C-alpha cells in the first residue's frame, strides 16, 4: 500500500536520509526506531510532503498506486487528513490554542466531506467516544489548554482517524506523556488499528513503546535503515551492531534479582557523619 523506493533527502549537498526500499502493507503496523538525528522523522514527513523547502527530496513514495513525491500542494492537501493522517509528538503544540476542541476535531471532516454541521458535530462526539474520552460533550466546548496531555493526544488521534484514513503515521505520539497515560494511548492505538482497516507507521526512539505496538520494525541510524524485520525477531536476536547497541542501552526496570545484585555493589558512605 505504501512503497518507498530510493528515497534520498539532502540539504545543501549533505545527505540526511537514504532509504533503498521500505514497504507498508495494508492494515500492517510498522515501527520505525532510531535516536535523534537518525532521519526517522524526516522520512515520514517526506511521505506527506511536509519537509522544509530547503531540503531536496529524490526518489519515489507510492501510496495506493500513486506517486506522492513532487505532487502539487493542492493534490497533497486532498490526501492529508483523508487518506493519510498524522499524529505528532506534542499535542499541546499541535492544537490551535484559540479554537475550541469540538470545532478543531471536526476540521478534517469539514475539509474532506460534505457532511452538514450537525452531522459533523455528531460524528465528532462519536469519535471522541471511540478514543475513550469521557464526557465528550463537555470537552468539546473546552479549549486545548484546559485538557491534560493525555486528553489532548486523544483528541489529536480522533482528528486523525475522523476520515477513516488508510494510513496513520504517529511520530513520537507518547513521548511527551506520563507513563501511565502512555500505556493507555498505546492500548488505544492498538485497538483502533485492529478494529479498522488502517495501517500504522509508528515512529519512536523508545524501543519498549515500539515493541508494544508494532508487528515489524525498521531500525534507523544516520539516515539509513540498518535492520528491518518482525518485531520479536529483531529484538530477541538482532543482527546489526547498532541494533544490539540500542537494545543494550535501553534500561529496563530491574527485577528483584538484579536489585539485590545492584545493592551489593552500590556505594556505602565512608565519609562518616
Amino acid at each position, binding site marked *: 500500500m505504501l512503497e518507498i523506493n530510493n528515497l534520498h533527502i539532502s*540539504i545543501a549537498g549533505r545527505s*540526511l536520509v537514504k532509504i533503498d526500499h521500505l514497504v507498508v502493507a495494508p492494515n500492517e503496523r510498522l515501527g520505525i526506531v532510531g535516536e535523534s538525528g537518525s532521519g526517522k522523522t524526516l522520512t515520514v514527513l517526506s511521505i506527506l510532503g511536509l519537509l522544509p523547502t530547503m531540503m531536496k527530496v529524490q526518489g519515489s513514495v507510492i501510496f495506493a498506486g500513486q506517486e506522492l513525491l513532487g505532487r502539487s500542494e493542492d493534490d497533497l492537501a486532498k490526501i492529508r487528513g483523508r487518506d493519510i493522517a498524522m499524529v505528532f509528538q506534542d499535542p499541546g503544540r499541535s492544537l490551535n490554542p484559540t479554537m475550541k476542541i469540538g470545532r478543531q476535531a471536526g476540521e478534517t471532516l469539514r475539509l474532506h466531506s460534505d457532511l452538514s454541521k450537525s452531522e459533523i458535530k455528531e460524528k465528532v462526539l462519536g469519535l471522541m467516544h471511540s478514543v475513550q474520552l469521557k464526557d465528550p460533550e463537555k470537552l468539546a466546548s473546552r479549549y486545548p489548554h484546559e485538557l491534560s496531555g493525555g486528553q489532548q493526544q486523544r483528541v489529536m488521534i480522533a482528528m486523525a482517524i475522523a476520515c477513516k484514513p488508510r494510513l496513520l503515521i504517529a511520530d513520537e505520539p507518547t513521548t511527551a506523556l506520563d507513563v501511565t497515560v502512555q500505556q493507555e494511548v498505546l492500548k488505544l492505538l492498538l485497538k483502533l488499528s485492529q478494529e479498522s482497516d488502517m495501517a500504522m507507521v509508528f515512529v519512536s526512539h523508545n524501543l519498549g513503546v515500539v515493541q508494544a505496538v508494532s508487528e515489524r520494525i525498521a531500525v534507523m541510524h544516520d539516515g539509513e535503515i540498518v535492520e528491518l524485520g518482525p518485531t520479536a525477531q529483531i529484538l530477541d536476536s538482532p543482527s546489526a551492531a547498532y541494533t544490539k547497541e540500542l537494545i543494550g542501552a535501553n534500561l529496563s526496570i530491574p527485577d528483584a534479582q538484579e536489585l539485590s545484585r545492584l545493592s551489593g555493589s552500590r556505594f556505602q558512605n565512608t565519609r562518616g557523619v
Partner: protein
Amino acid sequence: MKKSIRNFRTQPAIKSPQLIVGIILTGLVLAITLVSFFWTPWDPIAIDVEKRLLTPSFSHWFGTDRLGRDLLSQIMVGSQNTLYVTLVSTLIGVVLGTSLGLAAAGSGPRWGGILTRISDIGIAIPSILIALVLATTLGPGRLSVIIAISFWFVPVTARVVVGPARQILSLDFVEAAMTHGRTRMYIVFRQVLPNIAPIVIVQTSMMFAAGILIEASLSFLGVGAQPPTTSWGKILMDSQPLVQEAPYYTLLPGSFVVITVLAFNLLGDGLAVLLDPQQSQKGVA
C-alpha cells in the same frame, strides 16, 4: 556522529551583505560629517542672493538654496547637528531604557508591573507632542529635541528589553548561577545583559535611524535647530514651498536622510548576526 540541521550555516556572518553595505554607508556618512568640521566646498553661511536656487553644477554639486548658500555644504554641516542630537538621545534612550527593562524583568510581579505601566505611558505620548510642549516652555533648540526624543526612546527600549530579559531569566543557567551563589544583580548584568546584547544593538541602530527622522521632523516644524545652526530637517523645511521650482532642493537632502537611515538599519542587522556566537562560529558536526 549526529547530523544536526540546527548547526548548519548558510554563509559566514562577517561576509553578510547587510553588514558590509551598512558599514560602508555609515562610514561614508560619518566621514562626511567629520570632514564638515574642517572643510566644506563653500562657506555654508555665505549668503549670495544673486546665486539663489541654482541647479546642481560643477561648482555647486548640489546646487544652492533659496539664499544662495551651497546646498552640499549646508547638508554636510547640518549632519553635525542631526547626528549629535540623535546620538545623545539614542545613548540616553538605550542606557536608561535597558536599565529600566532589566529592572522590570528582574523584579517581582508587582514592581515589574508598575515599571511596565510607566513605560506604556511613555510610549503612548508621541515625541512630537512632547517636543512642542518643551519648545514652548524651554524654548526651541537642541536641548528640547534631545529631551523629547529620549523621553520616547527610554520606554521603547525598556519594552523591547523586558520580554527577552524575562525569558533569559527563566532559563536553567540562571538557576544554576543562583546555586553557585551569584547575586541577582550579578546575574542580571553579567548573564542576562550579554545574552540580550544583540537585541539591544539592533534596537539601538533602529532607534538611531528613527531618531534621525524625528529630529528632521522636529526641525522641519521649526522646533529643533535654530538659525544659524542648520539641520536636515530645517533644510527640508526651507525647501518645501519650492518643491516645484527646485525639486533638487528637496530631493537631495531627503535622499541623504533616507540613505543615512538605511545605513544604520543595515549596520544594526549585520551586527546582530555577527554578535550571536551561535551564528558566527562554525558549528560542530
